[in-house]
């Protein structure tokens, strides 16, 4: 499952989660999980102001995106000057946990 910018969505991808109307309080669904994306549907979503969708698998590499392992390495690198600070260590853990979660999804998909 991957959260992608709508501009990178392409026909043939499958929604992993229902898309909701962005403007209504009631969170009305526009189309449900499992829907296959089409050119027309993507265009409609764009017109309705949807900016991102959750799709099955990991179909695209977003510009600059690395594998989760490489992302974790990059995270360590960004925190290199503050890796002694207890608060910053905790902050880094939050990001790391997130990446590990993404990594599990990524590999589950490969299997």
């Amino acid at each position: 499952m991957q959260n992608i910018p709508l501009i990178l969505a392409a026909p043939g991808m499958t929604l992993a989660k229902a898309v909701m109307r962005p403007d209504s309080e009631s969170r009305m669904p526009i189309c449900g999980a499992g829907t296959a994306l089409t050119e027309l549907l993507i265009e409609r979503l764009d017109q309705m102001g949807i900016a991102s969708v959750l799709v099955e698998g990991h179909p695209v590499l977003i510009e600059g995106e690395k594998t989760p392992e490489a992302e974790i390495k990059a995270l360590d690198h960004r925190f290199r000057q503050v890796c002694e600070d207890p608060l910053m260590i905790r902050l880094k853990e939050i990001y790391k946990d997130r990446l590990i979660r993404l990594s599990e999804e990524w590999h589950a998909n490969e299997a």
Partner: protein
Amino acid sequence: MQTKREEINRMVQDVKSLPALPGIVVKLRALAESDAASLQIIARLISSDQILSAKVLKLVNSPFYGFPGRVSTVSNALILLGVNVVKALVLSSSIFDLMEENVVGLWEHSLGAGVAANIITKRLALPDGEEISTAALLHDIGKVIIKIKLKEEAERIRLKVDGGEVSIREAEKEVLDVDHAEIGGWLGKTWCLPEKLIEPIACHHDPVRSVTYADRTAVVHLSDILIKASGFGYSGDDLVPRIQEAAWKKLNLSDHVLREIVDEIEDKLIEVKNFSLEIQSSHEGKV
């Protein structure tokens, strides 16, 4: 003899306008040509760009209109200036010649910080969310000034950062004797922006110096750091700064809430990325 600081301060007082991203201006131009474009849609698009937001806020706070230093959000500026004035102002904006990678990176970083500030203020139930995200959106405007008005120095700063373990802020201080936060604050003063925007901009790296609007400054401080931690956009270096203890205490967040905030920001950043890719492609004309 004039010190480097004084020289830069004087230069900032002469800054009349700064270039915007061509993609945004193209989009706004298309909007401006359709009469149906509502105030909210125009406000939302302008609020995604630090330069255009600053430009609109500069005009509405100028002594000419007679309420200097009072307006701190783009939507209020639009109500007071009128849609036509704002459209004309945007259309007359000068733009960057090319979409340089670093320019787009800084734009993404700024917009990301604005989005983060909005999420944090909602979680903390602070009033004036729109004002605080505006301050976060504008927090690095000093970097644009350095890039545009001090080209040769900007290059020296870049070389220093690329050369080693120096943050852009430290490099700025070495080269200019002043950092982008302070320069941004000077610009805010020159442009008669409200103090509640100036203080968070000027103190976002050193929030203890913020006296009157310490809450807002703490939010902007954290927003900047979270966006850098996330690796979203590029603000001139790849070093996550330390969260200042006083600011952390001021915000009084638990680790649990921080985790939820980070998750919410990360999801929202995908949407920001979508917008960014859209802006870049509308510039290249492929759409």
